[in-house]
């Protein structure tokens, strides 16, 4: 059971990384145009104005 002492912090850390990533995406506005992003990937022409 000693392994729990490592595993629990590890799982919490990984979860927190996920939460942080979500917060970052939210801040960067990655959910502002989901339809557009889904369609832009299908365009033939080179996207010379990528979302910065």
């Amino acid at each position: 059971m000693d392994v729990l002492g490592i595993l629990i912090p590890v799982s919490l850390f990984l979860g927190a990384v996920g939460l942080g990533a979500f917060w970052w995406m939210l801040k960067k506005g990655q959910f502002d145009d989901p339809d557009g992003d889904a369609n832009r990937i299908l365009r033939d022409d080179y996207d010379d104005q990528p979302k910065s």
Partner: protein
Amino acid sequence: MTATFDHIRPSACPACNAAPAAEHLADLPKDAKLMLSLPAIHCAACISEVEKALSAVPGVRDARVNLTLRRAAVQAGPDVTAEMLCEALARAGHEAHELDPGVLATTTADRQGRDLLMRLAVAFFAMMNVMLLSVAVWAGAEGVTRDMMHWISAAIAIPAVIFAGRPFYASAWGALRVRRLNMDVPITLAIALAVGTSLYETIHSGEHAYFDAAIALCTFLLAGRYLDHRTRASARSAAQELAALEVPRALRITEAGEETVSVADLRVGDIVRVKPGGRIPVDGRVTQGQSEIDRSLMTGESLPAFAGEGSIVSAGEVNLTGPLTIIVTAAGQDTALHRIADLVAVAEAGRGNYTSLADQAAKLYAPGVHILSVVAAVGWYLYTQDLRIALNIAAAVLIITCPCALGLAVPAVTTAASGRLFRKGMLIKDGTALERLAEADTVVFDKTGTLTNGAPTPLALDALPGEAARVALALAQASAHPLSVSLARALTAGGTRPADVTELTEVPGYGMQGLWQGQIVRLGRAAWLGADATPDTASFLGLGDAPAIAIPFADTLREGAADLVAALGAQGKRVILISGDSRAAVTRFARTIGIAEVVAEALPQEKAALVADLTAQGAKVLMVGDGLNDTAALAGAHVSISPASALDAARSASDMVLMGKSLAPIADAIRTAVSARARIRENFTIATVYNILAVPLAVAGLCSPLIAALAMSTSSITVGLNALRLR
């Protein structure tokens, strides 16, 4: 949020950038940011075409399409105007409209949405971790291990619950302060009691801790809250977009010359010029010029009226032929347009309080749950004389009955339904509008601009002698008057070639005049040509001294109107046509479309009164209208719909807005509304069944945290899936 974090970098969210851009618009005329609405784009190719077409316009530095919002944000030099961009897009085959970036500023709603989403994310993170730890306890961990799991759960759950549950605590506190009960009171109580007893149990190495239940409760309820918010926010932003389509500008004439000002800056006594085709921004008196004005949005009259020096015009009317100079007699809040707003306020007050299905459920539910848990606690206390057991039971009852599924039941269905209807071109502005639409049994239609396009087409062109038709075409082609434009189009389509008419001049307010084979020919109003005016819209053609020939016009049916009326009749709904137009025009129209009940020559007050009467007789009225004269009736009806071409005031008074030209989505909307109401009821039933099954266990003290977690998750998931079944 993007706007707050980094002002300099252009973000992908045009709405976020619109706010700072709009603020600086006045200070930095060098770098204009234009917003366009693109209602018809739908695919990857559209994005490319639009961005290419926009970038090709000289002066445009950057163009970015947002497909989700169907908008484009354009960074351009000062000499680029929105009209140029719209034209460029029209050439590329895309419909585009200018948007007022000021109206689209980032609102508090956006911030609230992000805030809710963040809380949801935190709650979800905490729920997953606590659930993971709880699995160990459910699997049979004992003694020190179990205590450790409980302590770690507490360390995660307590801060998470405090942060994530804040919207509920605030709302519950707000309700309690005014001595009311709402859905959030049992929620808050359940969370507080669950966390409290669990902490107590954990300190005393107890067996049951409900940390997982408390945080799961928060997560599911926040999910419902977020869905609800998103539906309303997207409807609101689309409604804002419609408002932004009307950019309120006026041409003010000063000693220094003409200047373009915002309508809000006009004062009484100012002189404004209204170009042909422009909408009159204020109430006023004509001081110079002659023209015809279209009053159909204000009164429903389809016949354009003459306006000359001294004529009184009011805001909202459209100037047709000649430029008019108007002295402002009332601006802003004092215009006739705004007096109608008072009528709207009165009508809204008469609408009565609609209790939504969710409120009805909450009214039954909230007191029931409290009584049940108190009775269970008191019972157990009397039986065992042990306060700790009694409190545990009370917490278990509250958690089991907590309205996870109830909180999801309505938002999940309305989100699914309004998403469906949005794709079909219908915008739901109000959360309870769908429920009310499902109840409607009487449909009242306005005529001009609602069932018709509001644009007349000529009738009986075959009756025109060949020569006359050719002269008429020559005259009509030279004018921008809507009747002339439509006549020219119809004649050209019929294969007529224009006659050789010289010295074409437009006499504003009267018509066109020219010289043909040595005689004067005219196309215009009845009075000008010495003919008797007809009750219907008509243009008159005079060849020399011969008696004038009438060319009658009729409004065309809006796309889908006939099918809609037929479909409503088939559904057994009572259909009434009410219009401010002349009796002859209205009755003839009603016959063609198949409506039996007709009210003609109705004033705005009479429209509102008719709706109020019907409501008093117990009918649930669906009002469909577009004009200012319909606004009060729209606000007073049980539920109301207006087309996108309607005036801003009419759109804001109605619950739903049609985005496209066709009326067909209304029939779809009624069908969807009925099935949405059925789904909501089913969801309530499902939630109740889960409660009925689980509550006896909780009261009997047999409810373990495992059962609580299972009941909560399964009922929420079932309700969510049921909502997705919506067709």
